[in-house]
């Protein structure tokens, strides 16, 4: 999954972090544009919870909010060059390796916006219980075109897996946020993030995802 951009939006709808990871369509926008995009996403997020169809309100079918754990999303992959360092545990800040977490988890975002698919990109949104939103823009295009019977089963899995990978990935960005941003004594709450360590860690994780 190729991540183009990551945005972090605080609980009042203000943009506190924005980073582009490749020279793509998003890179010609200036920071003002991103501020507008962030507040639009924040307000749309709120409205989507109001238009639940009546059929859903009546039946209340149990949608499964559990997101399975997908191993090693965004972690150093095992390739021949790195097997030499196999015995050296990866430094993950305050987490003991090899990965940030190992269990499936329940999504806090039950009726807000989660995913936006267009012809050119897919946007995933992960909201935490404190109202913080992590947004990832990926240049992978998800198409739910079900062609033949065989094709449709594969596409089903591909579409589901992609959003689960995105949720796993964004939760790890949340873990990095908890470490490098929250524990920085000079960071003021709700303000834009200016931490090089956080930047580096996020960049490392995005590169590992490619």
């Amino acid at each position, binding site marked *: 999954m190729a991540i183009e951009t990551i945005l972090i939006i605080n609980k009042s709808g203000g943009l506190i972090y924005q980073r582009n990871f490749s020279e793509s369509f998003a890179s010609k926008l200036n920071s003002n544009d991103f501020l507008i995009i962030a507040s639009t996403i924040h307000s749309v997020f*709120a409205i989507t919870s109001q238009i639940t169809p009546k059929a859903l309100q009546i039946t209340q079918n149990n949608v499964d909010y559990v997101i399975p754990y997908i191993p090693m999303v965004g972690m150093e992959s095992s390739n021949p060059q790195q097997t030499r360092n196999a015995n050296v545990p990866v430094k993950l800040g*305050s987490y003991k390796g090899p990965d*940030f977490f190992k269990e499936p988890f329940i999504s806090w975002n039950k009726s807000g916006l989660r995913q936006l698919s267009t012809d050119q990109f897919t946007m995933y949104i992960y909201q935490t*219980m404190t109202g913080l939103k992590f947004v990832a823009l990926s240049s992978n295009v998800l198409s739910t075109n079900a062609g033949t019977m065989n094709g449709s089963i594969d596409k089903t899995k591909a579409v589901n897996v992609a959003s689960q990978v995105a949720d796993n990935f964004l939760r790890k960005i949340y873990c990095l946020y*908890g470490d490098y941003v929250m524990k920085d004594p000079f960071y003021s709450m709700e303000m834009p993030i200016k931490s090089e360590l956080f930047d580096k860690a996020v960049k490392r994780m995005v590169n590992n995802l490619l």
Partner: protein
Amino acid sequence: MSRQQSINSSQTPTPTTAQSPLSRSLKATGEEVWKRTEKINAELFTLTYGAIVSQLCTDYGRDFVKINEQLYQMGYSIGVRLIEDFLARTALPRCQGMQETSEALSKCAFKVFLNITPRVTNWSSGKDAFSLIIDDNPLSDFVELPMDAMEQLWYSNVLCGVLKGALEMVQLDCDVFFVSDILRGDQQTELRVKLNKILKDEIPIGED
């Protein structure tokens, strides 16, 4: 001697009453996450905290009311940040009431950060206030309060601030205060958590 060794000594068999599946899974989560966090030396932690408290005593000229207040404020700023770390690590779903909140605090939160599991007791009649009894407070290892401090100082007041800040960020407006402290000559160290109200307006949209 790291905290790991003192864990073994404090693992006395406690009488296990009927545990709900939720509390068992909270305990398991707490243990798991504790195992996966980097640790520091417990003496360093205790000494650092002691240095903070004694420096505050010097700075404020032994005005213990002000010192309590300052410790609370420090704890508050830690709490509003620590909650993000806690949620990122454990991804616990929202607690459905103060009962679940007390379980999450004692079995998960205290376990992950201080490796202690305080007991939950003294529920109020409306089930909106409870006490945490801390048996082995890592902040006050080897500490003895001088006579003037024994009347007024709550040595571990930073814990109250941490709980207040963290709970406020998940939309629970609570009052947290010490009721008794072993350092002051009382029988046990008791922390009281009282819910004022749930900040409904601030609950993030999309959570139902």
